[in-house]
Each structure stands twice: as structure tokens, then as C-alpha cells.
């Protein structure tokens, strides 16, 4: 397997150089910020220990996690249906699932806002029942859910599609119900995709800004806080908050990626 480590092919070498540009751009941007921030450590520490910053990070990551938990419950069944069935209008459903990917996020924000505001179609009855979305934590979760759903659903659907239908058929011929088959055969073999889909969706959720501020400017998520700091205190203050968030995200994603190594099994493929 030595060829895996070398790139003797001129084509691969040139592709790598071209592809390196995009990686280089990211590295350059990060280094540029890091050098600036690390040149003033005391300010960075004071920013990182600022309760507003900590709160915003906790709210962002927590709401993202909430959105993912909801997706696990309502997105997983949809992914299975899309993976295993063929029905008239499936293309329409697929397009509807993907809409949040294409839409400008301000539009997603308006859609969510109109639906969940106090006088909104769903917002009004829920408000009457005691749930507030405007400028409230649930509003953040709903906005995140809306924009991250396609990433989760598509990823999990791909996982379900990779489970051989044969295995499901065998389970069913042995007397398993559809649901038993799903729980005992399909889910265990798709854990890795579900995990990856969750990470993708979570990443997408915590990065959301436009859709969130439409419905919930408060409590601050990290993007709102950075924007707010930028407009009120300038670039130095806001870039410090940004750097703290970058460090937090890095830590979280590294831990999650490490976990994927030990998640799920692939070896039941026929």
C-alpha cells in the first residue's frame, strides 16, 4: 500500500496543488486571526471568561444539540422511507427536503418567523399553550432545525440505502415485522451514518445566523454576539469572540470525529 502515501502521478500532483489552494485559504485565514489574537493573550482570556461569551456558546451548542435530537426522532423515519420506497411524488418530497439548502438563509428566517411568531400559524396556538418562539430559546432551535434538516436526512438516507435489502428480507422472512427489522437490522448497521449526519447537522445548526436573528435576536447565539460586538465595539472585540468560538468548535469536532472511529459496524454488508 505504499502508493497510497505517494503521489507519483503528475495528474494527482497537479490536482493536489490546485486543491491545496482551498485548504491554504482556510489555513491562512485561521493563522491570520490566530496570530492577531495570540498577540494579546490577556484580552483573549478576558473575552473567553466573559459570561456573555460563555452563555452565547452554551446557548448555540445546546440549541444545536436540541435541533439534532429532534432530527433523530423525526428525520430518521423520513430518511428510511426515502431510502426504501418509490412512490409518486417522491421527487417533490426530495426537493422539499432540500429547499433549506438552496434558500438564502434570510428567507429561511422569514419562513420560520411567519410560522412561529406570536401571531403565526403555529406560533399562535403554541403561544396560547405557553410556548414562545419569538426572542426565545425554542425559536433558535426551530430555526436551526429548519436549516440543518436536509444535511441530516440526506446523510442518514444514504446510510439506510447502503444496508443490503437482502438482510432486511431475511429478517422479514424469519418473521420480523417491518419495525423489528428496522430496529434490529437497519439501525445497527446505520449508526455511523446517523452519527455523521448528526455532526453535519449540528455543525450547520451552530453556524446559523440569518435565520435565527429573524425569530430570536435574543438570547444571543454566538453569531449574533459576534455581529453585535462587531457593530458596537469594533473588529478587535468581535474577532476575539470569534477566535474563542473557533477554539470551542475545534475541540468539539475533534472529539466527535474521534468518537466516530468507534461507532457502528460496516461488516454486515453482503
Amino acid at each position, binding site marked *: 500500500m505504499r502508493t497510497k502515501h505517494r503521489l507519483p502521478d503528475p495528474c494527482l500532483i497537479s490536482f493536489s496543488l490546485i486543491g491545496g489552494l482551498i485548504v491554504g485559504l482556510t489555513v491562512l485565514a485561521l493563522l491570520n486571526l490566530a496570530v492577531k489574537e495570540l498577540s494579546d493573550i490577556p484580552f483573549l482570556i478576558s473575552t473567553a471568561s466573559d459570561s456573555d461569551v460563555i452563555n452565547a456558546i452554551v446557548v448555540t451548542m445546546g440549541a444545536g444539540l436540541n435541533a439534532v435530537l429532534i432530527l433523530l426522532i423525526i428525520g430518521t423515519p423520513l430518511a428510511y422511507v426515502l431510502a426504501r420506497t*418509490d412512490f409518486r411524488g417522491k421527487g417533490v418530497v426530495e426537493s422539499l427536503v432540500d429547499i433549506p439548502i438552496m434558500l438564502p438563509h434570510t428567507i429561511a428566517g422569514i419562513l420560520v418567523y411567519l410560522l412561529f411568531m406570536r401571531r403565526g400559524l403555529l406560533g399562535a396556538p403554541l403561544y396560547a399553550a405557553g410556548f414562545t418562539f419569538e426572542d426565545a430559546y425554542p425559536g433558535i432551535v426551530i430555526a436551526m432545525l429548519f436549516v440543518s434538516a436536509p444535511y441530516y436526512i440526506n446523510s442518514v438516507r444514504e446510510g439506510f440505502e447502503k444496508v443490503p435489502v*437482502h*438482510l432486511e*428480507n*431475511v*429478517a*422479514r*422472512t*424469519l*418473521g*420480523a*415485522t417491518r419495525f*423489528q427489522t428496522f430496529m434490529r*437490522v437497519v439501525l445497527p448497521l446505520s449508526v455511523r451514518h446517523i452519527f455523521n449526519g448528526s455532526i453535519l447537522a449540528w455543525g450547520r445548526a451552530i453556524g446559523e445566523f440569518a435565520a435565527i436573528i429573524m425569530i430570536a435576536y435574543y438570547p444571543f447565539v454566538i453569531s449574533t454576539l459576534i455581529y453585535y460586538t462587531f457593530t458596537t465595539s469594533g473588529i478587535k472585540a468581535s474577532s476575539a469572540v470569534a477566535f474563542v468560538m473557533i477554539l470551542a468548535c475545534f475541540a468539539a469536532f475533534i472529539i466527535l470525529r474521534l468518537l466516530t472511529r468507534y461507532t457502528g*459496524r460496516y*461488516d*454486515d454488508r*453482503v
Partner: protein
Amino acid sequence: MIEAQNITKIYGEMEVLHGVDLSVGEGDIMGIIGPSGSGKSTFLRILDLIEPPDSGDLSLFDVNVVKERDRVVEVRRRMGMLFQKPIVFNTSVYENVALGLKYRHVGKNEIDRSVKELLEEVGLARYLHSNARNLSGGEQQRVSLARVLVTDPEILFLDEPTANLDPKSSKTIERLVTRMNRDRGMTVVMNTHDMLQGQRVAQRIGVMIGGDILQVGSPREIFYAPESTKIANFVGVDNIHDGKVLRREHQITAVEVAGTILYVGESPPEQSDRVKVIFRGEDVTLGIGKTAQTSARNILNGTIAEISDIAPFVHIKVDCGFPVSALVTVRSAEEMDLSEGKPAWVSIKASALHLIAESEESEG
């Protein structure tokens, strides 16, 4: 036991089954033979309620499962299916075999007893705790069979169960299936493209070609009296010739084929005088030199036109005004010292010949 009527199945634009009828009685072993891609597997999956038909009626154990969809799982649990590919789950042999009973929430002790008993029967008791994935293909298929049989199905569906298996595993599977049929009265429906297997195991055979079951009958009827040339071709009839019915005398029909009169031991079809005369190569006796004394009604002289080896037989084509194909063993071919161009005679009993009405061909 199984009553399927007018079953159709469409995948996208393609109609895979066009109105299949089949009826299987309790305790029967029904073979379904047909070329690859003829819809056999799809039909079996429909019968085992893994997929619903697009139209048609299906009754199993007198339950109309098309109308009573809510009874599908209950009915499916009285049946079992073995697939062509050995499919085992990535766990121990024991756990694999126990699966069906676990789905049925059977008690632990009973599972333990049944699993061990079945593994003994398929000769895999020593692999109880091995990972099923580490076994050979044939052993995996035996695990799969044990896994089905442990649920004691009243109907067993077999989808080409021994394709690509070693002879020992094939034999074990055939033996077990026929024994389960005999001892427990298990109804069996088996897909196979191995016609010898079909003849060996099945009491009745259905021929499925192009998404339709064209003929159902005893192995003898299917192989010696196919209803169309399409079936005749599929079941390996070597000789199919155009003929014209001349007359009928004492249970014997005289048919003219390329200027030669052949005597056929059955009545001509009623529709027309134009017929196809068919007979199998193994029913043709071939000789050289002086014509032997034989009771066969049809004795023709000709010259050997072609010799081809299809071990363990040799396929000889003799030109008797029309080509007659004969199958002889390699040993007798050697003894007769056959060569192309050599004069030879063939004899065919009238009872070995079968007539198909020409008009039926247009339907196929």
C-alpha cells in the same frame, strides 16, 4: 394452501410478472423452473409476502392477504424462505439460527433446544459458537436453512437454494427439504434453473418464462410433453421439427416431416394439421451398420453431420433428410467410432414423440 391469481408486478416501467396463476396444495413440492430474469424470484417474494403484488389475488392458508393486509405478518410467520445467496448475519451460528424464534418471542430454553437440534440436522453442530461469516458458502447456506426450519414453517419457499453450492451442501439441503416434506408435510415451492434438480425434488413443476407461468404439470409432462416450443426449447428438447398430420390409425398419428413419415403415439392436436414434432435427444437410439431389431416405430437412415462433446454425453446430429439430434454416452460414441460423414441409423419410439399445435406458437 397457495392460490395465486393474475399476479402482476411492475418495477418502474417494466412489468416483471404479467398475470401469473399458481395453485399449490398442502404437502406438495412445487418446482418453478425458468431462465434467469423470468420473474421467478419476484414471484416467490410476493408469495412470501415480502413485497405486495401490483394487482391480482393471493390467498395463503385460506387468508386473502391482498384484502387482509393486517394479517400479513401473522401469515408470513407460518412460512419461511431460503434465498439463492447464503445470507448470514455477522454473529455466531447459534444467534443466526435463533433469530426467527427471537422475533416470535419464544422462551430461551425452547430456543436453545430447537437451535441445537436443527444445527445437528444440518451437520453444523460443531460450529455453534463460530461466527457464521467465517463459514464456507455451502455451510452458510446450511445455517440459513436451519434458521428457516427452526421456525417450523408450514410453507417453505426456496429461491435457487443450491445455485453455486458444493455438491455436498446441495445434497444436504435437498435431502433435508424432501424429508421435511415427507415427515412434517411441509409444503415446498422451489425455484430452480437446474432442471435435474427440478425433476429430482419436485412432484409438480411450473415453467415460468418471461413473467408468465406457461405450463404446470408433472415432471414427465413438462419434459416430455411441453405445450409449446418455447417450453420445449427451455426444457432442453433437442429435436423440434415442422410436420403435417397425414392420418390417424390405431392410437398412432402419422406425421410427415421433410418428406419422411414419423409415427407418433398420441392424437394430433385438434386445431390444425400443421404441427411441431418434438422429441428428446436421449430418446433417440443411434447405431451404425445394419439396423438393429427394435420395436421402435421410427427407424431412419442418414449420415452423421456433426459431433459435439457436452460431457458426460456426446451430441450427434444425423442428417436423415432433416436433422435428428441424439445423445449418446462418451463410451458408446467411442465404441461405435463415430465420425462426421459416416452413415448411421436412428430409431425413436412412437411414444417418445410429442405433437404441439402450430397455432399455439403464435400465442407465445
